């Protein structure tokens, strides 16, 4: 797996840096498997989860339970994630609404009728269970709503402060927010979309910019335990999809002409370019989706991997290295939170601009 090679490469590089001659790579790999599995830990933190794990106390995870909402064979079924008692191997069976549910590798399965225990095949996939439609309020959904609450608090307060001041001069939080809003308007929307049309897209661009930024920042706060909303491909896919839909719906004659029948080039070239442009239509949102997902997830993985070093080496002396390196990465990540929000917004605006550009000859 690429992740594994990446981890190995990172560790080897760190070995060179700190010259730990006494340790062989194989040794660490062995320890890795037996006592501390860095890959499992990292993926557990990066991926979504049912329940909000805060800390492990006396070998017992302490977590906030979150609602599990399923559309199972017998209709809507809801229970709290604490019903699984932190079991992730499919042993604890939750009986609810006439169905039997288990959690296996952070996936919820419904056992087929008449089955009493989950049966796994060689690749750890259940053979006698199906996945019901899952609307659960997972960790990421929960954190997303927390971020929404914060965003609403910030921006509704800002809007209110404008209403309060008669002359429209920003005061308090508005003085901090206004430059950001103006940045999105003057540096993103205006140059990318154009003076006459940018106003229509401002609500979307502003919302997407702050939504991504705030969620990126939330992902960096350690106590939230890697609530990796903006590093989740479902989240980035949804936002990219919205950009794609707006681009496609708002695309004018000129835009479609440039895709299917490129003006200004000979006919064979037109035929050659059309498939490329059609692929490009879909690659643009795909790149948006992957860029944000990969950037944020990679940042999380690096920080967690650096922290894992302490447990892999089982020595406290490595901690200064881990801490310094992860501090360094964390500072870069703080910059990345804003940069990725900016890139997503600027590219969305660019696509809108391309879709609504008038023909000029």
């Amino acid at each position, binding site marked *: 797996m690429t*992740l594994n090679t990446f981890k190995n490469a990172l560790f080897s590089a760190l070995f060179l840096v700190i010259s730990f001659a006494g340790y062989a790579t194989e040794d660490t790999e062995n320890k890795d498997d037996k006592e501390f599995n860095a890959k499992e830990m990292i*993926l557990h933190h*990066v*991926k*979504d*989860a049912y329940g909000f794990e805060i800390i492990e106390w006396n070998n017992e995870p302490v977590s906030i339970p979150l609602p599990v*909402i399923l559309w199972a064979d017998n209709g809507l079924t809801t229970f709290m994630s604490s019903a699984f008692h932190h079991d992730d191997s499919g042993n604890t069976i939750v009986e609810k609404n006439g169905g039997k549910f288990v959690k296996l590798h*952070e*996936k919820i399965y419904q056992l087929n009728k008449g089955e009493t225990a989950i049966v796994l095949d060689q690749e750890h996939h259940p053979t006698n269970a199906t996945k019901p*439609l*899952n*609307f*659960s*309020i*997972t960790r*990421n*959904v929960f954190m*997303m*709503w927390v971020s*929404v609450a914060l*965003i*609403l608090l910030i*921006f*509704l307060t*800002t*809007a209110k402060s*404008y*209403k309060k001041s008669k*002359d*429209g*001069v920003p005061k308090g939080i*508005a003085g901090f*927010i*206004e430059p950001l*809003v*103006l940045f999105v*308007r003057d540096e993103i929307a205006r140059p990318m979309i154009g003076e006459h049309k940018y106003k229509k897209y*401002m*609500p*979307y661009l*502003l*919302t997407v910019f702050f*939504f991504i930024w705030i969620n990126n920042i939330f992902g960096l706060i350690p106590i939230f335990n890697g609530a990796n909303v903006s590093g*989740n*491909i*479902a*989240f980035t*896919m*949804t*936002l990219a999809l*919205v950009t794609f839909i707006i681009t496609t719906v708002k695309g004018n004659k000129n835009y479609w002409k440039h895709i299917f029948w490129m003006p200004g080039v000979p006919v064979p070239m037109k035929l050659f370019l059309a498939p490329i442009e059609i692929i490009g239509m879909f690659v643009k949102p795909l790149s948006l989706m992957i860029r944000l997902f990969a950037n944020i*997830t990679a940042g999380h993985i690096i920080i967690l991997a650096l922290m894992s070093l302490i447990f892999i080496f089982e020595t406290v002396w490595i901690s200064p290295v881990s801490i310094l390196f992860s501090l360094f990465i964390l500072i870069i990540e703080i910059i990345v939170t804003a940069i990725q929000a900016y890139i997503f917004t600027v590219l969305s605006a660019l696509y809108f601009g391309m879709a609504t550009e008038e023909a000029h000859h």
Partner: protein
Amino acid sequence: MDLVTPGFGLVFWTIITFIFLVVILKKFAWKPILGAVSDREEGIKEALASAEKARLEMQNLNADNERILKEARAEREALLKEARDIKSKLIEDAKGEAQVQANKMIEQAQLAIESEKKSAMAELKNHVAGLSLDIAEKVVRQELSNKGKQLELVESMLDEAKLN
């Protein structure tokens, strides 16, 4: 929930949450914020335009002032010149009149002198005539006594008269 497989639940909730967020923020945040900002920008633009207008007006006013000042100065020049002219003319006139007056006085004096002279001459003539009579009387008287002495007397008398 694999790393690169989008989970259905999260997609579902993200769409709902995001649409909710866009709608709420559009109505209650972006509209008032952007409205206030653009209002302020309009206000600043207007203020700048009116300041520019005021500056132009000021400039015009200054130009007007300059013109009026120039005119006033020219007028003053003209007035002064006129006054000078009048002054010199007055002096000139006065001088001429004085000359005339003086000439007249001189003439009168000359006339007076002439008449005085005439009267003096007349008196002199009378006197001379009287004197001549006196002399003639005395000569006549001397003739009666001494002829030589009479002649002598006439002669000396004439000498005296000539000296006069």
